[in-house]
């Protein structure tokens, strides 16, 4: 029993209501259709190949043009990037190297202006430092003696010796 017979037997067991072997399709086909089809198909395929060659040529032209544009764009991009990188490398980032940044900036200022700035800031800074130091000392002292009774402070002051040799800071 060949493969087809085996298949038919299996199918007829499954569905005995269907005819075996399968009947030919009852559709009509135009006269001479199959005898002329190979020639028609060959012509159609040749025409299709010719048109696809044409479109392939157009595609290749477009491809080369696009490739040139892409190469030019990449070159321009590289030049712009290099220029940007070069400019950035000559400027110092204050967050990365503040000392270098300050020294570069200071070089741009004239000596006269620097001199007057230093004089001005020196006076201001010393005045501010004194007053701030005093304020800190007063605050610190207050916090240190906060828990000590007045009597104890008075007796301590009486025991201390002044610069001129007298004993006691108390007014009493």
């Amino acid at each position, binding site marked *: 029993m060949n493969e087809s017979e085996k298949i*038919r037997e299996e199918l007829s067991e499954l569905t005995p209501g269907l005819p075996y072997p*399968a*009947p030919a399709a009852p559709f009509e086909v135009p006269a001479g259709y199959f005898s002329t089809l190979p020639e028609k198909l060959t012509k159609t395929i040749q025409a299709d190949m010719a048109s696809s060659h044409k479109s392939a040529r157009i595609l290749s032209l477009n491809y080369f043009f696009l490739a040139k544009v892409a190469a030019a764009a990449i070159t321009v991009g590289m030049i712009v990037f290099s220029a940007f990188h070069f400019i950035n490398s000559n400027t110092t980032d204050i967050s990365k190297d503040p000392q270098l940044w300050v020294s570069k900036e200071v070089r741009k200022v004239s000596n006269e202006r620097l001199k007057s700035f230093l004089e001005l800031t020196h006076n201001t800074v010393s005045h501010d430092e004194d007053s701030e130091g005093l304020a800190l000392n007063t605050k610190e002292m207050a916090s240190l003696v906060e828990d000590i009774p007045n009597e104890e402070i008075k007796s301590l002051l009486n025991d201390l010796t002044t610069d001129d040799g007298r004993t006691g800071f108390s007014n009493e």
Partner: protein
Amino acid sequence: MSVHSDQEILNLFRIPEHRESAFTQLINKYQEKLYWHIRRLVVSHEDAHDLLQNVWIRVWKSLDRFREDSQLYTWLYRIASNECLNFLEQKKKKSTASLDEEVGGLSEKIRAEEHFDAARLEWKLQVAIQHLPEKQRVVFMLRYYEEMPYQEMSRVLDTSEGALKASYHHAAKKIEEFILNH
């Protein structure tokens, strides 16, 4: 002209000067089988002719890349079946009508055929086939008309043999029932 085996045709096709004659031999060998496979699926001769033409163009373009890990006729049926399924899918999408109306449309096409005879079994069979879902229709055609082994069908439709057996069983029962009731 002597009839060559598929392998001989393939070997000839790979020689540039024999390429066209080998292809003509291939068309002569399979044109009718493929035509009827397509025609039963799409019913109209015009649609079948257009699809068959597309199939052969595809075959011409890709026969060089045919890897021979399946039989040549399996590969041809694969291209033809996919072409038909895509065509039916597109037709369904284009149509604003429901699926039932579309099935009705293909059945009506069959009834409009010149020699249609509702009493004859082969016509009933064609009408019954149009009531199956598209892929099940292809499964039924390959098994019932082409008597293709499940192993080959599996290569044509990229579906497991088990699924194909179940699908064929279901389709054949539906067709048998339709024929008995009409």
